[in-house]
């Protein structure tokens, strides 16, 4: 079993969101939901993170940041898009300046719907991401073994 499952560290980035989803996300850290009991820590630093939680509809400015942060995360890693905006652009979908959906710029693994997404949904999304993370870890291990051989 991989320990990634027991200690998922997340990085949260608001890519031009309305902050609604972000507040819900932070609510997960509060005593009511207390995600730390699952070992989840909000690192605020891509180099420490395993799961990238992105909210918002992404515009040109935030695209660069999202890409940078993603590149600075060590493998294995997964991306979770949170909220209607991050899924498809949400109510901003028709705005001229947004990409509309994180998957326009990053490979997204889990989509958490809602406007704003509820903390329970977010936690559920993270838990689903853990399964994917574990898959990736195995894949990664196999790759490393092959490189060595």
């Amino acid at each position: 079993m991989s320990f990634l499952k027991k200690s998922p560290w997340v990085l949260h980035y608001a890519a031009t969101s309305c902050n609604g989803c972000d507040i819900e996300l932070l609510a997960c850290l509060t005593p009511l939901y207390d995600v730390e009991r699952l070992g989840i820590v909000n690192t605020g630093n891509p180099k420490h993170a395993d799961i990238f939680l992105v909210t918002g509809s992404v515009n040109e400015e935030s695209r660069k940041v999202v890409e940078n942060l993603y590149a600075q995360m060590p493998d294995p890693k997964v991306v979770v898009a949170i909220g209607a905006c991050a899924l498809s652009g949400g109510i901003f979908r028709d705005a001229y300046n947004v990409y509309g959906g994180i998957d326009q710029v990053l490979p997204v693994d889990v989509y958490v719907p809602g406007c704003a997404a509820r903390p329970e949904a977010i936690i559920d999304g993270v838990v689903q991401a853990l399964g994917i993370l574990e898959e990736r870890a195995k894949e990664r291990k196999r790759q490393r073994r092959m490189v060595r051989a």
Partner: protein
Amino acid sequence: MSAYTWWLAIGFLVLGPLVGALLAGIDRILTARMQSRKGPPLLQPVYDVLKLLEKDTLVVTHLQSLYLWGFLFFMLISGFILFLGSDLLLSLFALTVSGIFLCLAAYSTNSPYSNIGSARELMLTMAYEPMLIMVALGFFLVSGSFRVSDIVQGSPWQVLQLGGILIGFLFVLTIKLRKSPFDLSASHHGHQELVKGITTDLSGTDLALVEIGHWYENVILLGWLYLFFAPWGLAVALPISIVLFFAEVLVDNTHARLTWSSALRVSWWVTVLFGVTNLLVLPLIGHSS
């Protein structure tokens, strides 16, 4: 140096991380409870480190790993000396060197956050170093030796004789454990202005090394604290030191962070008022040696 102390020292090398991890785990649970949360499982720090070892490591410069090896190596030496019952000053020295290596690792990545983190870490070293020396000097004055094995067998009254020094030590312990109000160099909660300070640009195995190093460090510090009460015997001394150790968690959760200049000023004042004064009046309280 008896067979017993050799076992202790080797035990430190082998079991040190486990004990350190347990301390860190308890710390996290206590913190969570103080914030009326449930908190992570006890072994969470172990899971974290094992996970970090599974992950890829990204470096800014390859040399950063070298400095981290230095950090861990001197940390091990420091604890080894302490548990071998050898020289306290020497152990302190190795501890300082190890801290400097950690700073070098952060400096070598040359990102602004790491730079600020390591500069502040050095500043904190400057703040607590005199007090730690006072502790060693205090033990020397009451037991006539810098050797840990002699200090352990000192007079049962040494805690009272070294009351001021104990207060000073508890004060700098907060700094050493990187607890608020002195968590200037690497905040525990990463999503802040400092990001992760000194460890910002370390990842994967490198970060795991730092964590393991900190576990060892916690054990060493607990060992130092234990020395004050050691003459009372393990059954009494260990619980007392553990309680005092975790009192730092309370301090952590009830204080806001200080600026570096007040941290430096306050800790030097404490060193003078409690440490040096204690040493000066020590002859009046009576030597036991």
